[in-house]
C-alpha cells in the first residue's frame, strides 16, 4: 500500500479531510481524535491488515506517522 493510499484509508476511517493528515500532525491536536475515532482505527487495522491492536497500542500513537508506520 502506498503512502497516499494509507492516508486515504486513514482519512476515511477518521472521517476527516486528507489534507488535515500530515505525517507529523499530533493526534492530540485533531478534534476528531476521540474514543469513537480510536475505535474506528482499531477496527480498520483488523479489517484491512488482519492486525489486532489494543487500547495500549492506541495510547502509544502520538503522530499520524505512528499510525501510518503500523499500517502494513
Amino acid at each position: 500500500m502506498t503512502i497516499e493510499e494509507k492516508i486515504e484509508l486513514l482519512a476515511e476511517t477518521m472521517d476527516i479531510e486528507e489534507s488535515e493528515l500530515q505525517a507529523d500532525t499530533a493526534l492530540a491536536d485533531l478534534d476528531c481524535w476521540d474514543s469513537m475515532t480510536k475505535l474506528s482505527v482499531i477496527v480498520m487495522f483488523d479489517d484491512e491488515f488482519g492486525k489486532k491492536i489494543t487500547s495500549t497500542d492506541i495510547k502509544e500513537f502520538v503522530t499520524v506517522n505512528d499510525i501510518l508506520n503500523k499500517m502494513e
Partner: protein
Amino acid sequence: MFNMVDLTDKKILITGASSGMGAETARLCSKLGAKIVMAARREEKLIEVEKTLEGSGHKYYVFDLSNVEQIEHFIKQIVSECGALDGFVHSAGIGSTRPLKLLKPNVLKAVMDVNYFSFVEIIRSITKRNCYNSGLSIVGISSIASQQGNQTKTAYSASKAAMDATVRCLAKELHRNKIRVNTVNPALINTDIYQEFLDNSGDSEDAKIIMSRQYMGLGEPIDVSNMIAYLLSDAAKFITGSNIVLDGGRLSS
C-alpha cells in the same frame, strides 16, 4: 440432603462450553449430576474443560456455529449418539464493537449467525419429536446490552435483543410440549469477552464509567451459571419466557 437444583442424569447441550460462562456452567451442571454435551470450535479447550467435569458420560463436539445451515444435521448427530436432550444452554457468542460506518452487512450477519441465528436453529432442531425429553429447558445467554444502548454496540445489542424477544414468543409456542425457554442477561462478567472489551474500548475511561454503575463490581462466571443451573432444573418449572437480569445493580443505578 434435599437438593433443590437436582440435575441427575439430565442431558444438557452447552454451546460455547470451551471457555467463560459456558465452561463454568458445564462444570456446575456436572456437579449437580448432569451429563454434559459441549460444543465449540477450540478442541484443545474443550478437552481441558472435559477434564474438569465431575462424573462420567460427558461428550464434546467441535463445531463452528457460523455454519447455520449445518446445525440441523449436527443436532441429529448429537441426538443419535447421546440420546434425547433435557436442556440446552446457548453460551456461544461473539462481542462486536464497531462504529456504524464500519458496520457492513457481512459484519452484522457474522454476529447474528453465532449469537442469534444459531440459537433459533438449534431450538428448531432439538424441539423435533424424539430429540428432547418432556420438561426440556432452554436458556440463552443474552446480555443487559439487549436493554441498554451504547455507541458501537449495534450488532451485539441487536443480537441479544433478538434472543430476548424470541424466548417470549417461543415460550408460548412451546409450552404445550412442556418446553421452557428463557434468557439470562448478565452485565460485565470476568471472561475472555470482558478482556476483549477492555482491549477494544479505545478509551479505557468508558470501561471505568460502566464499572462505577455496576456497583457490586465485576461478576464471575459462577454468578451466571448458578442461575442457569436453576433454570435448567425442575425447581424453575413455572418460569418461562423471561429475561432474567444478573447485573450487580447496574440497570437500577
